[in-house]
């Protein structure tokens, strides 16, 4: 725990509010009167996913939380949890609802090193590497000609059956680079 002055809080900071960890999504700073200021925070509860808004005087003292982070790899899915394992083979279960953003890319054969965030020993979230590589299980063939990548088509990823847009030149069995933050196709792996 650390003391955090409300006026210094930034997006991405984690605060302890009502005894629960909240990650700040958006911060608004406004001058009120007599050189004072008001800070409005939009934050996501890391335990429940609930979004809430709070308001503070800029010089209010808040409780900052430093979260533990650990490198892990994906192990398997056992409804309703995804299981990750660290280097010492400790297993961590994370509810699938928490991972809905990255679930389309969680494949049992993936070897990506993921960053798992913990609060008081409980795993809260998982960040994939920025660029991940996945295999295309199915996509329609298109007439040859376009190699620019500007024309896109639908493709189904292996294991997760996630349907995403890829360049028209991508074929079944190709491995592709995906931006895990935006979920967008980046390139075909040669």
């Amino acid at each position: 725990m650390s003391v955090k002055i409300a006026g210094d809080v930034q997006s991405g900071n984690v605060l302890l509010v009502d005894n629960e960890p909240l990650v700040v999504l958006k911060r608004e700073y406004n001058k009120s009167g007599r050189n004072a200021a008001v800070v409005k925070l939009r934050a996501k509860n890391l335990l429940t996913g609930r979004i809430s808004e709070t308001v503070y005087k800029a010089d209010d003292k808040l409780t900052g939380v430093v979260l533990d982070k650990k490198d892990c790899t994906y192990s398997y899915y056992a409804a309703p949890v995804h299981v990750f394992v660290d280097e010492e083979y400790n297993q961590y279960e994370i509810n699938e609802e928490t991972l809905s953003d990255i679930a389309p890319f969680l494949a049992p054969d993936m070897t990506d090193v993921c960053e798992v965030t913990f609060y008081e020993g409980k795993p809260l979230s998982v960040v994939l590497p920025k660029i991940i590589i996945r295999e295309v299980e199915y996509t329609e063939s298109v007439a040859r000609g376009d190699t620019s990548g500007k024309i896109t088509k639908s493709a189904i990823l292996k294991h997760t059956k996630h349907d995403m847009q890829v360049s028209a030149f991508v074929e079944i069995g190709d491995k592709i680079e995906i931006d895990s933050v935006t979920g967008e196709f980046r390139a075909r792996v040669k």
Partner: protein
Amino acid sequence: MSRWDLFCRVVDNYGDIGVCWRLARQLASEHHLPVRLWVDDLASFARLCPAVDPLAPVQVVESVEVCRWTDPFPAVDPHAESAAVVIEAFACELPATYIAALARSTPRPVWINLEYLSAEEWVEGCHLGRSPQPDSGLVKTFFFPGFTTRTGGLLKERDLLERRARFNDRAEEAFRSRLGVPLRADGRITVSLFCYENPRLRHWLDVWRESATPIQVFVSPGWGQAEVGRWLGEPFLEGTCVQRGQVSLHALPFLPQSEYDPLLWSCDLNFVRGEDSFVRAQWAERPFVWQAYPQADAAHVVKLQAFLDRYLASDGAKEQPEALETLRVVWRDWNGLEPAPRPGATWGELVHSHRELAKRGKEWAARLDQAGDLANNLVRFVGEQGGLFPQPRQGG
């Protein structure tokens, strides 16, 4: 019966205690709530309300229990019933011992931070914002005064507009006689002047001296009177009346709150400042010029512009575009943003468009009335938090 504790620190001038006293009085007299007002500067308070004894640690004035807020704060009796509602005015910091006592109380009190007035749009997004306090485990709520229905509204006593409407020529005559200033005379413009330090004042005094229309200026005590004295080159003390060209200048005594409204009502144009006189000028339905509280990084400029945009753009503005534009030029000049290019002509236009601006003032006050008054909105909010509805007094 659930007590309301209202905390006020007098930081500078009289705005803080002016607002707090109005609110405390209104909660007590109109909503029949037991109110305890903690003030750290009773001497300033006594100037606004002569019934206050500046030396008394505890006293009851107009049904409000007034307590001196000392440092260190008096020990809080752990067995005494704690307040049901606590209001910290203008983000003043409550005593740590008091907060600790609140944290122990059951049920938890409704804790309000009554904020500064601003016309900026962000205020609507922060009004009634929840503010969990890590140290005490209590939750504070931000309550913003404002100009729209999505804010807390402005302080306005239930009978204010009625009293304003009853203020006829005879009442004005009586008020002026009481004040010891000349009665209204045809063809003369009357101006009230209440300001912070303002280098533009002497420019306007020059303009008024050369004005085509005779002007009578009632100057409130403080920096304004001192600056008029410097401009005159002679002492300008309470009760003084000096004529220079077309302008006659009258140094007023410090008026208690109850006498400030009639002053605004009896003038054709009011120069006001900060928050309390600014709000009263709007309810006075007369043309006015506002000096925003000067802030670092020119934050007041944003606030001034935000208010002007609302005031000049609301219903009816299309009918008086030139008059309103003249008002904008004067406001910007008065706040040091941009000198009026032709101040003499601008003043002439302002005088000429007085009727149109007075109409604007009436329309604006009617519009503000729709947002409800702040004390009423506050009581309603508290009631919604846990059934702490006001209880009428026996026979009251």
